[in-house]
């Protein structure tokens, strides 16, 4: 909703025109990086940044638009990641199919969790999502086999190394992973763009604005929140599957733990939740910070990037509650000479 349309018919055209150039530029840079930079360590870092951008965008799909804070989205990443890996190791299903199937498993889990939880509001909702994710994490960490499925407890599961094997989504080079996650990110952004212009998007924003008023306009809040949550969980689950393939390893602590959930929420909120590009912006700013601390500082400065996250979060909540994208959008609006005074 950045640049408001003046006349209804010209609206979509005017909106897209102001966006096409920066978007094309961004896409070109995104796709061009691996062609220009050959340093595999740098590519690795880029993949991690894109992964977080994708996860934050997936989180935003429901939480940003419906105004609820989930700190349990990692359970969907875990469901997708474990499902992808187990389907591969147990049944030999290719991860290319395993990712979407993992996404479906995550979506199913999200409906089970979301159905009772969406009745709660604000902090209660947030705490309940943590509780669900923690229950699952603790359970997986302490379960070696469940109904014959080897979950392998706290040790986690390693994907057997097959070398270069396209069917198994294993590559000697990092560049293919880069393009996979870049495509996934593009898909998630496209999904969010479609959401903004669809009934579901309007309905979610209405629920965010006022639940009773939304109900009176023909909206069943639980139904549409669940639909959005299932889509968000599907995308998050695919992200978990990608994570598993990229690292060839899943474990409960990293994939289901509360840290991943917090990262997803933080990047969206700091970047600007409830917008298409806010979470991407947040991830592009925050995730490299984590990469730099991990690779260059390490040791005694292990938690430095999270300290910085925390400080930025506090400043953002106090002074930029609509996220870092808000001043950028106002700037863009001015640039286009159509400052509408809002």
């Amino acid at each position: 909703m950045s640049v408001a349309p003046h006349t209804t018919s010209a609206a979509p055209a005017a909106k897209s025109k102001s966006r096409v150039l920066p978007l094309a530029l961004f896409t070109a840079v995104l796709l061009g990086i691996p062609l220009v930079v050959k340093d595999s360590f740098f590519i690795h870092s880029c993949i991690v940044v894109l992964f977080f951008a994708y996860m934050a965008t997936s989180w935003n799909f429901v939480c940003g638009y419906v105004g609820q804070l989930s700190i349990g989205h990692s359970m969907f990443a875990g469901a997708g990641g474990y499902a992808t890996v187990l389907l591969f190791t147990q049944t030999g299903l290719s991860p290319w199919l395993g990712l979407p199937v993992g996404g479906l498993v995550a979506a199913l889990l999200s409906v089970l969790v979301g159905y009772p939880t969406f009745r709660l509001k604000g902090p209660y909702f947030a705490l309940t999502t943590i509780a669900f994710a923690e229950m699952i994490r603790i359970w997986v960490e302490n379960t070696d086999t469940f109904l014959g499925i080897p979950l392998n407890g706290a040790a986690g599961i390693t994907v057997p190394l097959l070398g270069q094997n396209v069917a198994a989504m294993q590559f000697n080079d990092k560049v293919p992973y880069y393009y996979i996650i870049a495509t996934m990110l593009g898909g998630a952004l496209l999904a969010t763009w479609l959401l903004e212009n669809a009934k579901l998007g309007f309905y979610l924003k209405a629920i965010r604005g006022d639940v009773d008023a939304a109900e009176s306009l023909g909206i069943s809040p639980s139904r549409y929140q669940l639909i959005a949550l299932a889509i968000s969980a599907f995308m998050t689950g695919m992200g978990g599957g990608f994570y598993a393939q990229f690292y060839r390893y899943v474990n409960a602590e990293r994939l289901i733990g509360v840290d991943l959930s917090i990262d997803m929420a933080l990047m969206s909120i700091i970047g600007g939740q409830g917008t298409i590009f806010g979470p991407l912006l947040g991830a592009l700013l925050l995730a490299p910070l984590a990469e730099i601390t991990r690779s260059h500082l390490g040791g005694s400065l292990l938690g430095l990037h999270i300290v910085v996250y925390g400080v930025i979060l506090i400043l953002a909540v106090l002074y930029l509650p609509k996220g870092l994208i808000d001043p950028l959008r106002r700037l863009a609006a001015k640039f286009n000479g159509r400052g509408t005074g809002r």
Partner: protein
Amino acid sequence: MDPLILSFAVVNGLLIGGIYGGVALGLSLIFGVLRVVNFAHGSLLMLALYAAYWLQIWAGIDPYYSIIVTVPLLFGIGFMIQSVIIAPLIRRESALVVEPLSALLLTAGVYLVIDNLALMAFGPNVRSATTSFALPPVMLGQIPVNMPRLIGFGAAIVVAVGLAWWLKTTRMGRAIRAVASNRDAAALSGINVPLVYAVTFGIGASILGLFGSLLATFVPITPQVGLNFGIRSFIVVVLGGIGSLPGSIVGGLVIGVFEAIASQFVPATSAAILSLGLFVLILLVRPSGLMGKA
């Protein structure tokens, strides 16, 4: 199940549960008055534990004496968190009402900063303080009762009763209760609401100062220890009824005994899952908690 072992578990559960309740008191008080869910609650306890530990290492002060330092120290930290970090949010909202989710995000930011600064400063090593007092277990019939835990339990009861009494009888206590029941009316009748908020947050934190000293001898001190206590405090407070001081103690006792008994039959980790399940169930079925009004 051997009845002796079971009654030992129950006694231990009561002691630990009382301590959970005491630790949760501040969370409940702060929510009851400010409507702020303090995500950094456990982090403040962690700071208090480290304060007690370092006071012993550097100055040789016994953890039980370090209360003189930790309680005012944590009061100061709590007071500052409220007046520096949360107050601007309240000033932004015209009606003195905090948007609960924004407040949660702010305290989540505080949690991230404190926990990771502690990790950077102290490292991941597990530490523990020792006391020079001889504290042999007392025998309750055939059951040995751990003395440091009993002291913690007693402190929880004393603090809960003392706090309730203080809120009832003192000028500041009455101001806090007035703000809790209707902040706009309280502001109109001349109560300095920002000060009341900061003092309330300070008191909530200072209780953690006390427990930091009391628990330092038997709780493993790590930078992550806060989150465990924090989550457990949320469970306790939701169980007992958010904002209710007696509810906090009762909730703690229920969780303590529940986990102690459950871990006799299932692994301790499953008991933790059950506690979280209980938390979710209470929120969904009876959000006012066991002691709250329906």
